[in-house]
């Protein structure tokens, strides 16, 4: 799309002077990383982003405090998996908090960010100015998707790191007994925690692509956010209906809780690979749909 024979007014050293008729040899266009950096700056300068991250960080903190106040209730066998292990090892706060966040809180924040990508710019009216700059429609889509992916990493890490810290503060930290019965050292278990965070991040990439696509369909960001979040819930509901078991492996939420394999010795990568493949498929399909939609879209906002 970018050809090398661009002509732009030269002499960049003299700012804001109108050029004459001269169209000199074009300067080389910049890599375009500036827009990526700017996108992340804008994302992380928003109070909304920090509010969502704060809410995510609050989840492990609440869990840890609750368990700390009534440690006996954690052993009752009810509640999320790993809850009863928190009192023995604070690192399980992070794992438990992730499990609690996966069905709703993480998709909620991803839905907000992904649904806002294009429709948010459209509703501010800044979309037309980005395109006239020109940002390039494809480049803008790529930048928006990468921005959402970076947010997925941030969101997951927020839960894990907040969980590990509060766990270390309120509970003892020690070697971890894996699901396979093996015991690994603290350093090793921190690596496992990061692997789980990676797994959850990858799990959210398909949803991000869906959100990006929906965001190209409307100029109303709240609509795109809501639609993305509703889809994430619908997918999980469908995944629980045995009548639709043929459909289950194709649902983007199918492997969302599949990170237990990472808590065995040796690590089984099967579910990680299956999940990554499925998410890549969703990325390809919804990325292509977003491209097809956005490249021809009339920007009238």
């Amino acid at each position, binding site marked *: *799309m*970018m*050809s090398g*024979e*661009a*002509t*732009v*007014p030269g*002499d*960049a*050293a*003299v*700012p*804001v*002077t*109108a*050029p*004459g*008729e001269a*169209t000199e040899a*074009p*300067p080389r*266009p*910049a*890599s*375009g990383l*500036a*827009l990526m*950096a*700017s996108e992340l*700056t*804008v994302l992380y*300068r*928003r*109070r909304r982003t920090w509010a969502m991250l704060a809410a995510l960080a609050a989840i492990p903190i609440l869990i840890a405090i609750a368990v700390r106040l009534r440690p006996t209730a954690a052993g009752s066998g009810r509640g999320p998996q790993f809850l009863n292990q928190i009192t023995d090892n604070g690192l399980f706060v992070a794992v438990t908090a992730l499990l609690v966040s996966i069905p709703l809180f993480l998709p909620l924040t991803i839905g907000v960010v992904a649904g806002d990508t294009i429709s948010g710019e459209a509703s*501010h*009216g*800044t979309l*037309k*100015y*980005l*395109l*006239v*700059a*020109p*940002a*390039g429609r494809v480049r*803008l889509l790529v930048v928006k998707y990468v921005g959402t992916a970076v947010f997925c990493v941030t969101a997951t890490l927020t839960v894990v790191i907040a969980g590990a810290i509060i766990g270390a503060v309120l509970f003892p930290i020690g070697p971890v007994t894996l699901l396979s019965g093996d015991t690994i050292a603290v350093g090793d278990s921190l690596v496992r925690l990061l692997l789980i965070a990676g797994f959850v991040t990858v799990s959210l990439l398909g949803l991000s692509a869906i959100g990006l696509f929906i965001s190209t369909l409307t100029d109303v960001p709240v609509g795109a956010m809501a639609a993305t979040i509703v889809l994430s819930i619908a997918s999980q509901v469908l995944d629980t209906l045995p009548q639709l078991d043929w459909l289950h492996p194709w649902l983007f939420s199918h492997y969302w809780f599949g990170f237990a394999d990472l808590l065995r010795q040796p690590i089984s990568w099967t579910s990680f690979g299956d999940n990554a493949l499925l998410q890549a498929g969703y990325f390809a399909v919804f990325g292509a749909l977003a491209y097809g939609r956005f490249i*021809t879209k*009339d*920007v*009238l906002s």
Partner: protein
Amino acid sequence: MTATRPSAELAIETLGLTKRFGAHAAVDGIDLAVPRGAIFGFLGPNGSGKTTTIRMMLGLASATSGDIRMLGRDMPRDLHQVLPRIGALVEGPAFYPFLSGAANLHRLDTADRFAPASTRRARVNVALERVGLTHAAGKKVRAYSLGMKQRLGIANALLTPRELLVLDEPTNGLDPQGTREVRRLVRSLAEEGTTVFVSSHLLAEVEQMCTHAAVMSAGSLVAQGTLEDLRHVGEARVSVRTPDAVIARGLLANLGLALDFSGPEAQSPDPEADEVVSASLVDRGMAPEAIVAALVTGGVRVRGFTMEDASLEDRFVALTGEGFDIAQ
């Protein structure tokens, strides 16, 4: 109206440009020709298709049919080469309310791959200064007034040196001071060689600032040319002050002028009192002295005679229709 020029001298050229929204043609086969170096006023009442045309010129909306050439290149095919050379304000300014004015300009500048990062801060500051926003640069846009946002929008169009500025109603929401400054800014940019294409529904603004103009009405281009051309096309107004109003009316009618109204046939009570007879001159070939001569020969005591070109406003109203209702 405009002589056909070689395309290289045209900053903007459209051929049969059409945009339909459903069955309704918002822009209906317009042929614009904007010469380089011109300050080109794009006039039209609300809903006449100005913004829609501008969106198509900038590649924001696709044309239903027709061709666009901007700065000698096809749009939207060469969009990536053409747009860096164009600064634009499209239907009002738009910014991130949670960022400061300077941060907003910084953000939009990063979207232009040809805008050098090394001079970004300096260029943002110069652009802000040019529109008089230096003191509000650090303020969140949420706290800007309408006029301040409008100025920031113009600053955004000036971030890099441009060959062409496309400004959609740039003085919308500005105070008289701001309006005057925008006019001055546009003129100084034009002196530096930038072509300026500015849409407006305010005729006075176009008259004061532009060298060329085109008039849109309900999606069609009804006139185009230099301001001089536009003033001289169409009719002139003649008024005669005389006590012999009845004879004067008859003579003027015989000469082919269209009388404003056919007055009373009866003599006014005082035969010596002056009356003003006015008519419009449809045939521009007739010289004013010839009319006076004919009146005098016919025995009319001519005590005053004026002939004026129709004001551009009359032309504008004549071209776009008188009614207040939006044409569909």
